């Protein structure tokens, strides 16, 4: 199926994504932040679909929105947030932090202005049909070792999380 109204959806989705991001860092209540983050992630999954990466989009929805964010919500509900909500939300060095971040933003702008010609526009083929099969072939072929290391990392993370979060082991 040929893409319809690409610019419209691009601006819509990236708008939702950025607004979600702004809400994440400005909300007082962590639950609201988490929900804004979920909206942002879902919009990003839409952007992946526009980039003909359906498998990554699916993984984004299942793992991020359905898995990691549920973990976040869980922890937010376990720790009592009432007290932290009444306190100051930004730390004392926030001006310094903001300036540093804006400097980084300036750097980005400079880079993109300077390097605009580096990415020549090309006619791109629509490749959705067998994207998943190709990703699978690469993941289990060329990136086999990295894949195994990633699974090891996850195992270590599970053990680490259990060790830290459990009172008595």
């Amino acid at each position, binding site marked *: *199926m040929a893409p319809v109204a690409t610019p419209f959806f691009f601006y819509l989705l990236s708008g939702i994504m950025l607004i979600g991001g702004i809400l994440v860092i400005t909300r007082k209540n962590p639950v609201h932040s988490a*929900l804004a983050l979920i909206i942002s992630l879902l919009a990003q999954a839409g952007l992946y679909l526009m980039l003909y990466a359906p498998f990554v989009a699916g993984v984004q929805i299942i793992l991020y929105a359905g898995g990691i964010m549920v973990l976040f919500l869980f922890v937010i*509900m376990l720790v009592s947030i009432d007290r932290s909500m009444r306190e100051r939300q930004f730390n004392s060095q926030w001006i310094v932090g903001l300036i540093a971040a804006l400097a980084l933003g300036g750097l980005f702008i400079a880079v993109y202005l300077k390097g605009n010609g580096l990415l020549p526009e090309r006619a791109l083929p629509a490749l959705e049909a067998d994207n998943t099969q190709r990703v699978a072939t690469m993941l289990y072929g060329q990136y086999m070792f990295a894949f195994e290391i990633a699974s090891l990392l996850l195992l270590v993370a599970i053990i680490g999380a259990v060790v830290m979060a459990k009172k008595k082991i």
Partner: protein
Amino acid sequence: MNSVVQYIEGYLSSNQTPGAAGNLFWVFVYIMLVFGGLSVAVIAMNWLERKILAHMQVRLGPMRVGPHGLLQPIADALKLLLKEDIIPAEADSVIFWSAPFIVVLAAFTTFVVVPFGPTHAITDMNIGILFMLGVSSLSVLGIVMAGWASNSHYPLIGALRSSAQMVSYEVAMGMAVVTVVLMTSLNASGTGTLSMIGIVQAQLAQGEWFIFKFFPLGLIAFFIFAVAMVAETNRAPFDLAEAESELTAGFHTEYSGFRWSLFFLAEYSAMIAVSSIAVTLWLGGWLRPFPNWLSNPTWDLVFSLVPGATFLFLAGMCFYSTARMPKHPYFRIQTIGLGGFGAVLVLIALILFVPGVRTRVQDVFWFAAKVSAFMYLYIWYRGTFPRYRFDQLMKMGWKVLLPMGLGVLILTAGVALVQQNLWHQ
């Protein structure tokens, strides 16, 4: 006018899903059809559950509203819509307000990729099954939001329980699904598919439903999925999230009226959605029984007559009950209503006998028939089983189903490898 007819005819003769054809009009029509049909199915399911459960429990169930309580779901829906919509004072009103919609949205969106027939799906996605699992896992968010926003202990515990449960059982579910995806790769090219339509077509090409593939491996994978899907939809015996004897009503304790009915709608839609996955992955989706073995035109005709015959049978039951209605003026309207319902069923049956309709619609019928078998199972479980305890539930998910799923996956991979190598020689 003529061009409109041509347009419709042009679609009817095409063999693509509207989504794949990029036909926005038909996509819209299909979305309306699917969601309308889904709502009707949920209403029918409501009535059937109450009736079947009642008969299992030696009672009659709803009998007052309409003949044999047929209009009971409508009365219930009206009552729910007219009820006061209460938002607790200390609740986080925005989240409280939006949680039911997220749950409903997640449950309904999954139907975008459900294939009711080779062309009867809103669209066919390359990542179909992944999409379904992903979107259905989003309903966890709605449940957690509902439980948290209510600002009350019981909903919070219910939400924590149900989200932990759904996240855990998704793992076992995923293993079972991957087993099937592995089975689809047993063809000349050696690549499998995640597309829902592709999975059914693979079953057709391989000449057997995946439940019988590599017996008993397919069956075990199906069993894992069948257990996990009950847990995934929070139904008995895994209905801990809404265990009324422990948590009053779980995450929707504080909800009332319309919002509560949205949770209800979402629960039943999710049940139909996961049953659709099970049917598509293991029971041949829209395929009629023995599509390869009994494939001469005579059998085609016989099987295409079954949908109409089923409706005729239901109509016959209606007429039988009409005849058995008490001959008392008090029951006159009910008797007429039941007879009228039978007449409607006869009409549907007659439409289903029209050759053009018959061949197009019988796929949907077989799909629906298989799904309703699962729906009956859901009700049966509810009437028979006590409820699991939370730790037992977790133990079952992580220590029984997950290792079983891993084992089946590895064994299937091994058997498939052997078979694939034989193929290429």
